[in-house]
């Protein structure tokens, strides 16, 4: 569909929020706490964070929650009864205030959950989500969306993209999908027609730092490089990078029992953990941290493009911001680009 451009007055956003609430939508929006910004169930418009460059956590757990039931079971006299999850129970959600690098990440996550086998749980959750993207008017040294094919005003992944026209200005709303249109129809009068809509000059400038196609080609011959060992020496093997990442999808499946009843739960896992790949025999194919750091980079910049035809990185820079030991993915990618193999 053609992207329809409308004007949304700055004081209309709150009205839009209230209308969505009246239409019994659950709204997840960024809020700040302890100096970090995270998506939370927004009860009211007040307090929604706007000044942040990027939220500390990505918005992925709307469609891929950190812990979710995949089935319930109960043992009874007749044997066993097992029940899958009821997709009708999943609420309609508006994801408010998503940056373009998160919105585009939804597509990358979807590729993982839909190559070959289709993951209905993920797909059903996602189908209930309407994404309100907010383009970026500022960036920092961790941002590199433009190096992986994105940009601060990228419409990909959003159903409606809002761009603030100047500090304290009104918003340009780009209605991108049918889903977005459905939301607009709830509050038609807030989306005004206007001739004077501009966006490019209000977007943040994010310089291109590397060529991702070139990195991919380099990585084909980079598996044995010593670079992995040197770069990963200070990595402590936590899962912070994976858990804040908008496209990391590794998970674990765990059973939780209470007497004769219980559930099977899918929960996040990280390729950075030393026990991630360990066999019951004790053998570990990725026995050292450098192998695990390599897996993270290779998966995003070599394996995913090869197998899924998408890159597994949106350039949001979160992993580098979250890393307790300053493992900076951008810096490493640049150094890979510079190294001659």
């Amino acid at each position: 569909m053609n992207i329809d451009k409308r004007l949304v007055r700055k004081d209309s956003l709150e009205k839009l929020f209230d209308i969505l609430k009246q239409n019994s939508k659950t709204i997840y929006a960024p809020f700040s706490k302890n100096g970090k910004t995270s998506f939370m169930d927004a009860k009211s418009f007040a307090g929604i964070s706007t000044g942040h460059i990027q939220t500390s956590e990505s918005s992925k757990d709307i469609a891929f929650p950190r812990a979710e039931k995949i089935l319930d079971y109960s043992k009874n006299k007749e044997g066993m009864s097992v029940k899958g999850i009821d997709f009708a129970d999943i609420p309609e959600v508006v994801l408010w205030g998503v940056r373009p690098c998160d919105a585009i990440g939804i597509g990358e996550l979807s590729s993982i959950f839909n190559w070959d086998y289709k993951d209905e749980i993920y797909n059903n959750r996602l189908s209930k989500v309407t994404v309100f993207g907010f383009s970026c008017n500022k960036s920092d040294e961790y941002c590199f969306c433009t190096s992986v094919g994105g940009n601060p005003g990228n419409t990909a992944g959003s159903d409606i993209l809002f761009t603030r026209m100047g500090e304290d200005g009104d918003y340009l709303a780009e209605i991108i999908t049918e889903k977005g249109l459905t939301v607009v129809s709830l509050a038609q009068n807030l989306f005004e027609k206007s001739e004077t809509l501009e966006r490019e000059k209000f977007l943040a400038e994010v310089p291109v730092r590397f060529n991702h196609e070139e990195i991919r080609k380099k990585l084909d011959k980079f598996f044995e490089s010593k670079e992995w060992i040197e770069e990963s020496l200070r990595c402590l093997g936590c899962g912070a990078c994976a858990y804040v990442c908008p496209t990391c999808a590794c998970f674990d499946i765990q059973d939780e029992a209470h007497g004769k009843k219980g559930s099977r739960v899918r929960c996040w896992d990280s390729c950075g953990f030393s026990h991630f790949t360990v066999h019951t025999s004790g053998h570990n194919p990725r026995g050292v941290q450098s192998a695990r750091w390599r897996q993270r980079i290779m998966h995003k910049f070599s394996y995913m493009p090869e197998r899924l035809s998408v890159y597994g990185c949106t350039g949001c820079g979160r992993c580098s911001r979250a890393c307790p030991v300053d493992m900076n993915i951008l810096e490493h990618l640049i150094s890979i680009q510079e190294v001659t193999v």
Partner: protein
Amino acid sequence: MMDNLYMPYLMRIDRITYEAPGVKTFMLKFVNEADQEKFSYKAGQFGEYSVYGVGESTFCIASPPTRKGYIECTFRQTGKVTNALSDCEEGSIIGFRGPYGNVFPIEEWKGKNLLFIAGGIALPPMRCVIWNALDLRDNFKDVTIIYGARTVKDLVYKDELKDWELRKDVKLVTTVDPDGESPDWKGEIGFVPTIVEKIAPSSKGTIAIVCGPPVMIKYTFPVLAKLGFTDESIYTTLENRMKCGFGKCGRCNVGKVYVCKDGPVFTLAQLKELPDEY
């Protein structure tokens, strides 16, 4: 249709066979007949077996697709789930989802000799192919099975080994590691690679299928090469830790290759293309 990808079939344990210390075989039947009717698989594929409330564990389907109405699995009690499975009794209900992964290209092997080389608990993934081949015996020329274990006690499928021994159309060689023999042991004594070298099966028109612990595999491949086997004619299976079984959970990949989707069956030629991460 399953409710979702993660929904297992309910399976009733029909028979439990004690194979070796800590090793059991379950014969599993579908609780719902409708499930059984739509279920099909091929030799080499695997599944996720689960004890409700404990978790899931990955292993192969050890019975051949030529035998209908049930599946079998053989496992060694080692981790959380296999311990719980081991505690199950006949009649208990467990979960199974699958089949996943690729298959042994049995159809392509028509008219060839088959050489099976297995070590220890790695006979189960091969048993599926062996029976599949034996059930279609006319399609193949000579069938040779070389199977070794640490001790006589550790040999699995003892009854079937007897069957194979008695069959005229199968050449079975069993061996145990030095000092693993019992006083009445009549088989070979020595490590599998040594025995392969000693038996020296012909590589001409022969497909070799090798499954076993990494150390056995490592020393068997050079022996086969010496006997003239090409990398394309040697098949093996890879085992990696898995959670989902269908290419999403992120554990089993060796480089670009997902063991759960592109494997578990690989030729030696394919294996040589993979980075050393398995």
